[in-house]
């Protein structure tokens, strides 16, 4: 009798961990191979200009991951992320063109300055609560566009700055693979980071900062840490984007782009890496997709004026529409919708009702 009370839980008491059958493994392998084929091999057959778009998609995915650290892990919003990415882009271009450094130094410098400005901005804003912080980032984004990017010695003024591709990676497909490699590194770092103590501290922070601090989590340090990581990723993405386009100009990095970044992160799905990658790629490739869908162009033209849509306008309308639909109906974004598939691919049972961890909605204290 007492034996029952004191015996520690034996292995046979717990439900057996799900292991896919041989057929299951094989099927998963086939799907993985198909995805790899789609991402790695198919683009090689496309013209060089399209490869530029694909490389841009990979860079946007990095930006989505960067913004997710702030928005998804810490719960702070940055409405000026285009500034972070843009300054990284200019920094890399400056280092390579004006200072004559190698591409890798440029990338390093871009990541460093991304982290540095995040550190400064984060440090200043530590006392500023959620909504007000959004305003500060928004204002900072405007300052970057109106003031920082106008510094002629740094940005080349109206003409912009040149940013040649690195040696050995001049061809478009090689640069595309390079961007993919960086994306893989960023994904890995993000994954590892969230498995550390600091990473878990961040998640606790998002749920409830006060309770988190009672557990001994240094709220300020954890938030600053998240900022810096976000900034480093953003700077890196900026550098890659700069060399992808072969030149950087100030007009690209505006408030509109910051909003596109926020939209693609939210629509992609916060805290879901596959979702973020898809979200980033989708928004980078929207004009490409619209042009490539057979017949879409004709459809748009057939709509009578003034309702006729150009691909540009369609893109402008679809973005916010998707954002609103996501926020109101599907808060987890694309990532939540494809979660049964991504979980299956990771070796779990296919569960169509899997909606991810139940989000505890704590109505936060008003800012």
């Amino acid at each position, binding site marked *: 009798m007492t034996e029952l009370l004191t015996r520690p839980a034996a292995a046979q008491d717990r439900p057996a961990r799900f292991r896919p059958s041989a057929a299951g493994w094989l099927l998963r392998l086939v799907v993985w191979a198909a995805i790899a084929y789609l991402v790695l091999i198919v683009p090689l057959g496309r013209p060089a200009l399209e490869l530029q778009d694909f490389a841009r998609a990979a860079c946007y995915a990095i930006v989505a991951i960067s913004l997710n650290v702030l*928005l998804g892990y810490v*719960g*702070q*919003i940055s*409405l000026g992320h285009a500034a972070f990415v843009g300054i990284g882009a200019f920094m890399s271009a400056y280092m390579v063109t004006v200072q004559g450094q190698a591409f890798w130094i440029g990338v390093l410098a871009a990541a460093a300055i991304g982290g540095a400005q995040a550190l400064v901005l984060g440090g*200043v804003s530590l*006392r*500023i609560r*959620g*909504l*007000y912080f*959004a*305003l*500060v980032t*928004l*204002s*900072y984004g*405007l*300052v970057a*566009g*109106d*003031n*920082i*990017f*106008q*510094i*002629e010695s740094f940005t080349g003024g109206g003409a912009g700055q040149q940013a040649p591709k690195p040696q050995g990676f001049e061809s478009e497909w090689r640069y595309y693979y390079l961007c993919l490699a960086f994306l893989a590194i960023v994904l890995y770092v993000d994954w590892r980071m969230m498995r550390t103590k600091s990473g878990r501290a961040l998640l606790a922070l998002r749920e409830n900062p006060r309770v988190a601090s009672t557990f001994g989590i240094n709220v300020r340090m954890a938030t600053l840490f998240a900022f810096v990581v976000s900034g480093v990723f953003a700077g890196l993405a900026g550098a890659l984007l700069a060399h992808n386009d072969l030149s950087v100009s100030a007009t690209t990095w505006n*408030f509109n782009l910051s*909003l596109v970044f*926020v*939209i693609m992160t*939210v629509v992609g799905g916060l805290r879901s890496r596959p979702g973020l990658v898809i979200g980033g790629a989708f928004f980078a490739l929207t004009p490409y997709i619209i042009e490539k869908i057979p017949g879409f162009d004709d459809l748009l033209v057939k709509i009578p004026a*003034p*309702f006729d*849509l150009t691909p540009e*306008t369609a893109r*402008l*309308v679809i*973005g*916010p*529409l998707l*954002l*609103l639909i996501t*926020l*109101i109906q599907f808060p987890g974004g694309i990532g939540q919708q494809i979660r049964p598939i991504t979980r299956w691919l990771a070796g779990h049972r296919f569960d169509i009702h899997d909606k991810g961890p139940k989000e505890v*909605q*704590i*109505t*936060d204290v*008003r*800012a």
Partner: protein
Amino acid sequence: MLALVRQRAGLATGIGIVAALVIALFVAGEERALVIGVYTGSAYGLVALGLVLIYKSSGVFNFAAGEFGGVALCTLYLLHSEGIPYGFAVVGGLVAAMVLGLLTEQIVVRPLFEAPRVTLLVATAGVALLAIAIQIWFFDSQGRPIAKAFPTTDRVTVLSVQISDQRLWLIGTVLVLAVVLGLFFTRTNLGLAIIGASQEPTATELVGISVRRLSTFTWVLAALLGGLAAVIAIPDGGSFTPGVMTSGYLIPAFTAAVLGGMTSLPGAFVGGVLVGIVQSFATNASIFQDGGALDIPGTPSTLLVFIVLLVVLVIRPQGLLGRSS
């Protein structure tokens, strides 16, 4: 006496800052900035009123406030170019703004009532973007000319700045509205109900007041304010472009609201005027131009407004006239 000063610290600081600013401007020979600042700041103040209204009642930063006005402008332009008299076109524009406010409240704000405020911020930003996109869809992104309501341009000249009828109306409207709304929230039952609903929705429902109806009313009122701001302020410049309210007015309006205190309606007007003066000073003062002592690359006003925002948020987060929560 000291207790009185401490109580009214915000007001005292505000008066002190304004006095210092006025003296500094006269000394620097930039007193024109004072006048220009007052009427450009009034436009910011009017938009800021709508922002403060929404914040007081739902705790949301309403990023669609600019486009409430943008829609009003668009409708005004459409109706006027179809031959409808200006006055009716203005009314039509205001109605359109209110409709957008209603739609936003029903479709976006209601479902997200319990959601974190950051989510609502992003959602209202989405509404603004969608409104701009729809305008560009129908009109393309060119600027369109828009007529003024009151063509007289030289009614008054203060400190060598011409003040047109349009501008006088702008300043007057904002002043009146700021006072009226301030009284509304402190003296009328409806206003107090709105404040109560924002603090204790359950208790408000228990007393028999419909929180849902109050929310609808507030958003429609805020949309009306936004519409008014656009309809009075933009024609002064002679033309409008889709998105002009958001790109040109929303950030200064937010800065104005923060400066005045996000919970203070008169503060919105004061904040607006201050932001207007800072902007005007930054744009015209010679020390900021190329070759001046403090040459700021690009547009100096953006940097200065940013600095003002940071300083206020770090030093006095509740703004000049707000109450610290």
